[in-house]
């Protein structure tokens, strides 16, 4: 009833409500579009802003950095000149350069251990000069250094890893969690209660890395962190680095080893304090000539690739890792395998010569009778022919150094027979001083044992103890210096601490050679040197050996061993587990791996080629030999097919 009465009015109302509703919809629609576009737009601008932020400040930004070490009185040494670099988050950068090129100096600027003399270094936009930022910067950029044991602060592994987080003032639970995480990441959790001096160098280095990881850095600088490690320790640390890089941590590695630099995504070459190259490794390592001039070499893999390409073997570009190279090796396609007798490269025939050293059933235990007693040698046999060059391989703690020290009477046999020349060391009345002159031992890092002010006196030390006449001392020092390639007049009055790494190594070698030993024992003679000094010293040693000196060399670097020696003994847990000619031993790839050793690249490539049908003779250990054999094979097969 009521409705009908007001029908016209109700229609009017309907129209009005319709209008209002449609109007509302419109408003909502328009506004939602506006809102939506606003959100889109605003998020879009945010993104571009972030992008801008990224391009504006990289993780590490170095502008016109110069640095000079303060030098009292003397002219200041400019270690870095106008270096500019940007390192983005997530990069893997290798810094290479000869000794004294400023690599380590640059690395120490990255976390404010050194502050620029001019220019700026910014980490996440923070200037390293600002003391308020330093702690934050150091928690962003961690650093693992060269000498493992110098980085350990505490008396147990666990406490040491806690040191960084403790300094950050974190809560105890958080610290405990981080200790566990980082020790597990480096595989040292089981040994967390050990005191550090009972660990091997490789293990200590992993603890040092865990100590940095516990601070959860965004970037880790490895300053020659693998140079003191044995092959196994080095491989472990390198794999850890790869893994960290995959997890998004920025990696900067300073290294003398081109093989390691080749693993990075970007290689920066420093020369006399300047950045001279900054590119992908592939491109950097194609500048063979320039690298050579700066005292740098090529990675063994690249050397092998070049040798193979020179004999027109088909290989793709960009092969920097051995595994990539091995995967890329072609199958043998040149007709049927030539049925020719294989002639391995010639080795010295050694058995005919008289033995200069004879060791049978040698036993040695360190710290015997204490809880720390450690068996170092167990029934070791060792023979050395006069005039030969013998390599000793094995991981740290396998007994290499212990054997060397028995050969010059520093350690006396606890059981067994040891004859060196005409000296019988297992007998009580042996004249140790004469033994030590007969068999000169050059220790690892011999330059850390210098104590005289002048080079000449340092070399003359042993001669003076032997009470030689002045004239004779002078003559012997001169002779020894010329042999290692140091000019007598020019170097005899140099101060020992002003020598470069390569020069001091030569002085150390000369100080042993001056005693005119018949047998030269070398413990890691090339460790810690840059590629140029390495090459020089290797040449000198080769010459000495050719001139009739018998040489025993222990080394972690297979390429060096392949260059210098003709016989090998492999040690493992104090036993001599493999023995023979260098070519035969290196060909037993699987056994070597079981003992934690990695044969030279050329050997591994040769083995892979053989598997792919290449009829290569055994015993190829240098890239050039391998290339020559491949060329023979290619020439012969093409000749036969014609």
């Amino acid at each position, binding site marked *: 009833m009521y409705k009908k009465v007001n029908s016209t009015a109700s229609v009017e109302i309907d129209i009005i409500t319709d209008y209002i509703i449609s109007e509302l919809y419109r408003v909502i629609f328009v506004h939602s579009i506006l809102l939506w576009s606003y959100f889109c737009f605003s998020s879009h601008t945010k993104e571009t802003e972030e992008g801008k932020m990224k391009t504006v400040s990289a993780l590490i930004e170095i502008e016109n950095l110069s640095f000079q070490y303060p030098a009292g009185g003397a002219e200041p040494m400019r270690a870095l000149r106008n270096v500019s670099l940007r390192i983005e988050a997530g990069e893997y950068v290798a810094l290479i350069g000869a000794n004294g090129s400023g690599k380590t100096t640059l690395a120490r600027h990255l976390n404010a251990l050194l502050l620029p003399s001019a220019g700026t270094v910014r980490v996440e936009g923070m200037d390293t000069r600002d003391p308020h930022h330093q702690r934050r910067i150091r928690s962003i950029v961690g650093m693992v250094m060269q000498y493992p044991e110098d980085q350990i602060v505490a008396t147990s592994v666990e406490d040491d890893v806690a040191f960084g987080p*403790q300094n950050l003032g974190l809560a105890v639970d958080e610290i405990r969690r981080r200790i566990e995480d980082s020790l597990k990441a480096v595989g040292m959790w089981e040994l967390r209660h050990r005191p550090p001096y009972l660990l091997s160098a490789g293990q200590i280095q992993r603890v040092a890395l865990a100590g940095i990881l516990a601070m959860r850095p965004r970037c880790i600088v490895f300053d020659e962190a693998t140079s003191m490690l044995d092959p196994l320790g080095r491989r472990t640390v390198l794999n850890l680095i790869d893994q960290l890089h995959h997890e998004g941590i920025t990696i900067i590695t300073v290294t003398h080893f081109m093989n390691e630099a080749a693993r990075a995504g970007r290689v920066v070459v420093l020369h006399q304090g300047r950045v001279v190259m900054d590119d992908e490794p592939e491109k950097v390592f194609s500048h063979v000539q320039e690298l050579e001039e700066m005292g740098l070499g090529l990675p063994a893999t690249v050397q092998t690739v070049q040798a193979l390409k020179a004999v027109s073997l088909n290989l793709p570009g960009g092969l920097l890792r051995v595994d990539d190279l091995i995967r890329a090796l072609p199958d043998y396609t040149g007709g049927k395998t030539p049925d020719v007798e294989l002639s391995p490269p010639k080795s010295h025939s050694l058995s005919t010569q008289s033995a200069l050293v004879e060791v049978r059933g040698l036993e040695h235990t360190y710290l015997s009778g204490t809880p720390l007693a450690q068996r170092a040698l167990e029934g070791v046999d060792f023979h050395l022919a006069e005039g030969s060059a013998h390599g000793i391989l094995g991981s740290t703690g396998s007994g290499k150094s212990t054997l060397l020290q028995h050969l010059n009477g520093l350690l006396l046999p606890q059981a067994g027979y040891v004859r060196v020349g005409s000296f019988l060391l297992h007998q009580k009345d042996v004249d140790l001083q004469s033994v030590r002159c007969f068999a000169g031992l050059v220790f690892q890092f011999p330059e850390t044992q210098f104590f005289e002010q002048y080079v000449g006196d340092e070399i003359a030390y042993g001669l003076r103890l032997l009470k030689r006449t002045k004239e004779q001392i002078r003559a012997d020092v001169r002779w020894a210096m010329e042999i290692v390639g140091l000019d007598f007049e020019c170097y005899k009055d140099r101060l020992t601490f002003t020598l470069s790494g390569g020069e001091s190594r030569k002085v150390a070698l000369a100080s042993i050679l001056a005693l005119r030993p018949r047998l030269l024992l070398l413990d890691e003679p090339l460790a810690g040197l840059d590629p140029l000094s390495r090459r020089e010293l290797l040449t000198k040693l080769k010459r000495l050996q050719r001139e009739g000196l018998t040489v025993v060399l222990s080394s972690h670097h297979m390429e060096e061993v392949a260059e210098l020696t003709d016989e090998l003994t492999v040690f493992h847990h104090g036993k001599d587990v493999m023995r023979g000619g260098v070519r035969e031993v290196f060909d037993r790839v699987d056994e070597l791996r079981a003992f934690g050793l990695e044969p030279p690249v050329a050997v591994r490539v040769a083995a892979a080629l053989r598997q792919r049908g290449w009829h290569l003779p055994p015993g190829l250990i240098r890239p050039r030999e391998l290339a020559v054999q491949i060329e023979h094979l290619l020439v012969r097969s093409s000749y036969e097919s014609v």
Partner: protein
Amino acid sequence: MNQFEFLRYVNLGQYLPTGSWIHRLDVRVRILAAVFLLLSLTLTGRPVALMIALMGLLALLSLARVPWAYALRNLLPPLPFLLLLAVLQVFFNPRPLVTDTLIFQWHWVSVSMASLLAGVTLLLRFSALILTLSLATYCISTSEMIHGLEALLSPLQRVGVPARMFVMMVQVMLRFLPFLALAAERIAKAQASRGAQWGSRRGSLIQRARQVIPLLVPLFLTGLHRAENLALAMETRGYDGESAHTSLFAAHFSWRDALAVMVVLMFSVVLLLV
């Protein structure tokens, strides 16, 4: 015996984790107990007290489940020196008291009751001190030691004494010693292989003193070099000596710890009073 094993002489880290009742005590209690014992042994002058102390120490060794023979072996290396000192004490006691009873006299050499007692006291005192120190090293690992020291000394930090710095110094020293021993060993060997005569007793005193220079100079330089590297490593890990620092030490002081402290304290007082 190897003339170059310097690590043999570093007696640190001889911690024996036997998990005994003593090992499970709060580390602060163990440190305090050792300090009480050392103090009372140094201050007491009576052979009877020292005898009691020795018996107490043997009991403690058993409690710590350390074989007596193993602990007593530590007395062997210094024994010749101790005996020499004791003999000197007995025969050349400078001023015999008037009340003293003379046992034996020959020219200016005299043995009296007091000097005999003094000799015995010296022997007993040093044996007890050595045993206490050995016991402490068997029962307190170096890392516990650091934590304990930190906890004991941290109240001093509030008064303005740089306790944390001190603990850090002790810690670095403890961890450096074995490495320095190893470095010294390496250097001695290197010089020996260049003709230096280590261990041989030939030559005059001056000649032998001169042998030490080639050892000391490189050792000093290596030490400095390492200290520098260590400082860098510590800075890298955010150490600046002053600012806040979390201690990992978790206190778990129980009635057993209180009991142990009381017992040792009383024992020490008894030693002083006997």
